[in-house]
């Protein structure tokens, strides 16, 4: 049976290939055909079949499996198998996938008139894997532990601790009385009221984070919780998990699909193997032995070359944007970049095609001309420092250099993360391009592990070492301009260590716009404001965006319902099933 089916599938793909080569393909339409990039905009292999073991591989390991203690998009996507949050993203390809739908909650958050209280009501009949009902207290506890005990749980974002009006609450591990946590009120078993310090219009996005997934207080084991997360989703841990070992998820019998807006229970089992060698992983993906690369960062160069040369394999690949903006931050506190003209010389001198090549050419990304990622609602294309073919503009460079009084060029440094080959190559590309104008940049590589905490992310270090230009990349925590910009251009987010606002941009106009957007209810109005922030940030000439990163993703033929989820910028794992 299955053999016949496979043969048929093979015949269809080759027919599709023929069509493509005649120039007939490309429309997508229903999108069920397996062709190159089909998964970016449509569902490939739709099927409602259940069963099988869905096998994931990770080239490293997750920062944590604890839904309250993780900050990686891949993991936020993956935890949806066992940790449901109050709201979540719709299970749809394309833009629709950015929409929020209520998950544990009956509806999206209801905001009070003063904008300071967001209220969610839990659906009825929700249960943990052991059958105990899920209460509002469990959600409150989850938020308390994930945001207010930074000594124990500190890998995830801390939006709640920034937004909630919790006084000097010390977290559930120091203060065992949850009633002392005033940031969240639970008037009854099912109602959760978030008390904010200041209004925040995009709170639903925060509520969509896995940190709102309930945790029963008596099952919490602090930073060991990741070894035995208590599931409230369709799958649960088969047994206690040891970090580094293969993770096995099995069906959670207490899960009721009726309560779930998503269909996320197609396979019988889910398996994740960690620390898998990349080239090996790619080969196994192409052979169908493995189903998904869970980190979702794309294929390695070897496999990429193979796929792009082979039309058959290419039809099983997608090449979507990852939402990551790759850019160089220029620090105006480092001479000579205190002079805007000098910064502009760098902006005009950059050869973005070379940087694109560094990231793997057209497959690696699209050349970017502004900061906001194209998939963000409200995106407007602007190119304030445009150059012919993005290759740099000698005349403008010369003008700028003259304007800043460095006609013969100057010396500076470019920092990058040494264990990120592509970023390193991009830095080399910039170095080469600038060298032609007499701007001699010395490259400084630092370990990715300490780059944000100790080097580029430490303003004191940047000034001491005179890191004028710093390579960086940024993706949004949620699909809005606020989620993207807040950490990297808002003056308030400048920190002594772990700083992400590498240009140390502290423009009152930008700060004000972002603060205002936070309290603006109308999404359309907010989108306008973000476009304005984008323009202002570009105008500061402290940011040199060069690429909207793209990933070359592979979907084996035997995986069904594959599509690229715009929310987490990778295949939507929750929807996947296996061809039986």
């Amino acid at each position, binding site marked *: 049976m299955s053999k016949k089916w496979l043969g048929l599938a093979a015949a269809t793909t080759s027919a599709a290939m023929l069509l493509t080569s005649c120039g007939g393909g490309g429309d997508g339409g229903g999108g069920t055909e397996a062709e190159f990039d089909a998964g970016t905009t449509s569902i490939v292999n739709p099927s409602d079949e259940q069963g099988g073991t869905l096998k994931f591989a990770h080239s490293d390991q997750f920062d944590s499996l604890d839904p309250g203690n993780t900050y990686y998009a891949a993991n936020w996507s993956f935890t949806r198998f066992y940790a449901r949050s109050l709201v979540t993203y719709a299970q749809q390809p394309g833009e629709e996938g950015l929409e929020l739908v209520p998950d544990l909650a009956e509806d999206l958050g209801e905001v009070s008139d003063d904008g300071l209280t967001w209220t969610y009501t839990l659906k009825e009949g929700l249960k943990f894997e052991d059958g105990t009902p899920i209460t509002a207290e469990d959600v409150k506890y989850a938020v308390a532990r994930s945001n207010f005990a930074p000594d*124990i749980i*500190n890998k995830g974002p*801390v939006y709640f*601790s920034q937004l909630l009006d919790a006084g000097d609450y010390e977290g559930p591990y120091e203060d065992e009385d949850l009633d002392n946590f005033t940031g969240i009120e639970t008037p009854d078993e099912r109602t959760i009221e978030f008390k904010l310090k200041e209004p925040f219009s995009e709170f639903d996005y925060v509520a969509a984070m896995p940190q709102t997934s309930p945790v029963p207080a008596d099952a919490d084991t602090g930073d*060991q919780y990741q070894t035995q997360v208590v599931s409230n989703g369709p799958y649960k841990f088969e047994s206690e998990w040891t970090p580094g070992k293969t993770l096995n998820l099995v069906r959670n019998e207490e899960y009721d699909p009726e309560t779930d807006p998503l269909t996320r229970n197609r396979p019988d089992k889910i398996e994740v193997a960690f620390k898998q060698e990349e080239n090996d992983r790619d080969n196994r993906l192409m052979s169908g032995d493995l189903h998904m690369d869970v980190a979702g960062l794309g294929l390695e160069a070897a496999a990429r070359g193979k796929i792009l040369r082979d039309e058959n394999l290419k039809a099983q690949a997608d090449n979507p944007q990852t939402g990551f903006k790759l850019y160089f931050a220029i620090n105006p506190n480092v001479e000579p970049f205190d002079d805007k003209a000098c910064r502009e010389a760098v902006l005009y001198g950059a050869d973005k095609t070379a940087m694109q090549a560094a990231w793997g050419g057209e497959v690696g990304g699209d050349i970017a001309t502004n900061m906001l990622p194209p998939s963000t609602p409200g995106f407007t294309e602007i190119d304030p420092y445009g150059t012919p073919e993005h290759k740099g503009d000698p005349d403008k460079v010369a003008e700028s250099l003259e304007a800043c009084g460095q006609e013969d060029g100057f010396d500076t440094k470019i920092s990058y993360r040494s264990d990120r080959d592509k970023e390193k190559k991009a830095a080399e590309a910039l170095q080469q391009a600038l060298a032609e104008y007499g701007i001699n940049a010395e490259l400084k590589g630092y370990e990715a*592990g*300490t780059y944000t905490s100790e080097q580029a992310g430490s303003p004191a270090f940047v000034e001491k070492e005179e890191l004028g230009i710093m390579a960086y990349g940024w993706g949004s925590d949620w699909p809005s301009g606020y989620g993207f910009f807040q950490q990297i251009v808002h003056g308030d987010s400048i*920190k002594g260590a772990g700083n992400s606002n590498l240009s140390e941009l502290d423009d009152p106009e930008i700060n004000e716009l972002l603060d205002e957007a936070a309290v603006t209810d109308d999404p359309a109005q907010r989108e306008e404001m973000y476009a304005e922030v984008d323009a202002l940030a570009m105008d500061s000439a402290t940011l040199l965006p060069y690429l909207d990163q793209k990933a070359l993703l592979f979907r084996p033929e035997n995986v069904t319902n594959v599509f690229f989820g715009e929310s987490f910028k990778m295949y939507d794992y929750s929807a996947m099933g296996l061809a039986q």
Partner: protein
Amino acid sequence: MITYIIRRLFAGVGLLLIVSMVVFAIFFLIPRLAGTDADGLAARYIGKSPTPEAIAAVKERLNLDEPITVQYGEFVKGLVVGTEYDSGTDVIECSAPCFGYSFKTGTEVWPQLIDRLPVTASLAVGAAVIWLVAGVSIGVLSALRRGTALDRAAMMVALAGVSLPIFFTGLVSLAVFSYYWGIFPPGGSFTPFTENPIAWAHGLVLPWVTLAFLYAAMYARLTRAGMLDTMGEDFIRTARAKGLPERTVIGKHALRSALTPIITIFGLDFGLMLGGAVLTESTFSLPGLGKYAVDAIRGNDLPVVLGVTMFTAVFVVIANLIVDLLYAWVDPRVRVGA
């Protein structure tokens, strides 16, 4: 004899203490000299959003504000009597020998080391068998056929072997045998012996051979030199004068002498390798101790680095002790107490 072993064990403990001090100094002192303060160190253990609160909290949890001597004291205490970690809700007992606790992965280091040991041990033992057998027999053969084409060819190959970087031979063999021909699985996969001995061996063939090639080359050269020295010894002449057949002269008299010094070298090599064959494991992405250490260094997971280094040093100390005892057994002249 017992006294001797005890004395050596004490010396070994002393050695370990010094090693731990040096490692500690490198990782905890030099970053400070390089300008990283306690905040920076704390930030290493925090995810993508190191807030000042988190930094302060982590600093306190990990005693990063304490003087380095106190921190070192804590570490040694953990090794000797064990220590405790606060997981938030519970107190985690990290019983002796507590090699520390990785705050990056939220796991104790010791079980992780134990977990990776089989990989490294499989690699080391298999490779050692190959290189000892191949290296010694080639060395002996070369010495006996000194000056012949066989000798010259073997020695050229051996010289090439010691001149080839292991990561290059590893990569080329991966490319050829795994990616092009598909005879052996690519790196990264390790099947425990207990699970499937055939898959275990199949997956390790390339790393074994790659690693063994280098060492076999070294040992062939050593053995040959040792054999040549020994064959010129008076007692070999005596053995011949007794009328012993050449087989016995070589097999019994020459080999024993020639191989005795190799034991020492082997002990050190093997001990060090049990602590992780860094390059081989990295090239073949084998999840062994060496790879663990390299990953930990890259990820600045200091307790892990400290743990692996200490672990390695323990192996070296034990290997040295075993070698010395073995040496005394093989060579009565150095017998203790004599």
